[in-house]
């Protein structure tokens, strides 16, 4: 009951207003970064943002719905990775509650911990749905590792870790930096603003 009440408190009207905008941020920035041909994704900034100022369950919902929207509008390969996006949001929210978004080095550490969650959930999905080789940069790294003689499973784990750790640390730092510079009056409207103030 206590959990249910705290979830209810997290999902206030500002949270519901923020989530669609965060989804759009995820997908629009992910698109921008792909236009710039950078080796990272930056497609979960919105999810982490919601997770930090609205709690882990709101982060989870943002991740899930981001991939649903991406799957509907952009390409269907977003759907199988929805659990990964959900884990990013949940772990980020949980870390924020534990005070990880109060200083920059803790935020960087939060990025590393989020990566661990990503690897645990993403590797089985890559293996089962895509046979280990996804049609993107992670798949290219995996192929390279497999070609160098590593087993498929360890290649997938290594490639997922490598491609995510920089991405998630940068994501966490960007979110930390932006919230740091934001006026308290605006932040105070969000249910978990105490995570960053």
């Amino acid at each position, binding site marked *: 009951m206590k959990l249910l009440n705290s979830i209810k408190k997290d999902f206030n*009207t*500002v949270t*519901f*207003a*923020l*989530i*669609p*905008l*965060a*989804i*759009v*941020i995820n*997908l*629009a*920035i992910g*698109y*921008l*970064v792909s*236009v*710039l*041909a*950078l*080796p990272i994704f*930056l497609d979960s*900034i*919105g999810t982490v*943002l919601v997770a930090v100022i609205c709690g882990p369950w709101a982060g989870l*919902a943002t991740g899930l*719905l*981001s991939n*649903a*929207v991406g*799957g*509907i*509008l*952009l*390409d*269907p*390969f977003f*759907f*199988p990775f929805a659990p990964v996006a959900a884990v990013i949001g949940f772990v980020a929210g949980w870390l924020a509650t534990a005070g990880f978004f109060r200083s920059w080095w803790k935020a960087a550490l939060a990025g590393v911990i989020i990566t661990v969650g990503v690897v645990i959930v993403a590797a089985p999905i890559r293996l089962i*749905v*895509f*046979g280990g*080789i*996804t*049609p993107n940069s992670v*798949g290219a790294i*995996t*192929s390279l590792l*497999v*070609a160098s003689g590593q*087993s*498929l499973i360890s290649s997938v784990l290594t490639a997922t870790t490598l491609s995510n750790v920089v991405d998630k640390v940068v994501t966490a730092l*960007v979110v930390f930096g*932006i919230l740091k510079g*934001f006026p308290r009056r*605006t*932040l105070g*409207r969000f249910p978990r603003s105490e995570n960053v103030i």
Partner: protein
Amino acid sequence: MFDAAPGGWLYHLNPLTKLSVSLAFILLAFLLPSPLVSLGLFCLAILPLSLWGGITLPMLNACLRLVAPAAGVLLVVQGLFYPGGQTAALRAGPLVFWQEGLAYAGLISVRLLIMVSAFSILLATTPPAKLAMALQQAGLPATFAYVLAAALQLLPEARQRALVILKAQRARGLRVSGSLLARARAVLPLVVPMISSTLVMAEERAVALELRAFRSGVKPTTYYEIEDAGVERTVRWLCGLLVLAAGIYRLWL
């Protein structure tokens, strides 16, 4: 990716029916062990359905763009490096393509083909807003239906705006091409304005939502009622039963 123009009988179906059929195809492809059975599913069910609905061209286009590159890489990597490779299928100089690896790559590729083509049937005939509305009528809470509908509506515009920001910053001298470092430096000036404006927008939208009794708990009525014929309900039940049967077959037989 798709532009669901009105027309064709698939367009007028309840989106939930199309969603159930698509999901059933995909789950069947993952539950049935043989790539040939899955390929049969594509040729004898998905392809005729798309022909009947007049969406074969956009569907095949999506498959070509998404599945073909993945299948190509899979065939090469799994063909060459499959760990249980016993029988050589093809020798090209020092390279040996193993039959077992090619078969595995084939299985995964067919599954991907079914995934993309089955979703195409739903997405190429359903405007996103209609899908969100159908989910709401089926019992998705109005709050989450709003989240889905708002995101679906805002995204195309936001992607355009992202490109406009990119062009504007370039016009001011921001370098967005060149070395990796140069491109990485371009990220923050592009990303930060987008995110900070969002936080302010969220506050404004929350006020607008509250003024319209967003969380009053009263079930909102809709302007359009999405039709749900009895036949469609039967089709959805059949899809569920079919997947259940395949699951039982996979687990116990």
